[in-house]
């Protein structure tokens, strides 16, 4: 009986993630110098559903590896660290933005171009995936329009 209850409880908790409830807004990638091997991607994730969504990872075919990263001050130093999971609470939003949580893209397979659309795939704890198209933006001032800044 106890086992059944536990199984039911587990089912209840593991089936509460619906990637379809996630709305991705303003997904973009920072244009870095052609010699740079790494860059970061940013976006706003809005959970329109009634259940929390737990993100467990991200992949990008143009990068040797990709990951969800956090940022913290370690004394005077800025330190990045991998996030095992990011929870987007029901009815709330999570922002990946410069200087904060970001998507780290390591080992770019070719130099990026402003305006390129980069495909990334988010994974949730329920085993679902969510495809994202992020635009490469040239953040050097005076170049904004090339990168599609609004």
């Amino acid at each position, binding site marked *: 009986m106890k086992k059944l209850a536990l199984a039911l409880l587990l089912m209840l908790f593991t089936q509460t993630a619906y990637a379809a409830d996630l709305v991705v807004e303003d997904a973009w990638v920072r244009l870095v110098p052609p010699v740079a*091997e790494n860059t970061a991607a940013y976006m706003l994730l809005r959970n329109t559903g009634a259940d929390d969504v737990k993100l467990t990872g991200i992949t990008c075919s143009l990068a040797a590896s990709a990951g969800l990263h956090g*940022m913290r001050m370690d004394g005077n*130093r800025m330190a990045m660290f991998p996030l095992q999971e990011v929870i987007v609470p029901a009815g709330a939003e999570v922002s990946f933005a410069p*200087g904060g949580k970001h998507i780290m893209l*390591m080992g770019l397979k070719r130099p990026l171009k402003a305006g390129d659309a980069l495909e990334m795939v988010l994974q949730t704890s329920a085993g679902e995936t969510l495809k994202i198209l992020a635009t490469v933006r040239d*953040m050097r001032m005076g170049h904004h329009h090339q990168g599609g800044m609004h």
Partner: protein
Amino acid sequence: MNNIRIRSMFVATAILLAAAITIWLAMVQKPAVPQALQGMGGDFQLQSSRGPVSLHDFRGKVTLIYFGYTHCPDICPMALGIMAEAMRQLGEPKADKVAGLFISVDPRRDTPGILDQYASFFDKRIRGVTGTPQQLDKIAAAWRVDYSVPDKPANANYSVEHSTFIYLVNPDGKIADLFDESTDPALIADKMRLWLM
């Protein structure tokens, strides 16, 4: 001429004179280096792809300096973008009076060749330099830079923790102000302008 007329002329002259003195003072007086920054920084020599670069090469210019590394995905490109924008805002007449320096604390991966290409992407006036770990440690101590490079091979995907100051170095080679990647470039440009009057 009556007395009132003479008096008002005298007052007007006095006001004009006071205004002229104020403007003259503002023009000749250089801003002061804040107490907290005195004794920080100092000359150094590092390597670029076009030979050695020393801080004293930038005498007479206002220079923005940042310590980072090219594998840095977020904060370093942000900081260099801010520096480039501040330099751009100073405009054409002051174009050759401003300079930038990107010092990599990760010489294992950042060769001078890579660094110059990386830095000049943001602004042609920003040079990319680095040195030996010993040289960098010495400069870091004098400039109060805090960093740590993991003991990993160059082909490993490691990240470097580092402090994130953007240093404003005045035409005498002294650190005059500190900013970071979240500072408004217009504010940095204003502070740079003070040293170029």
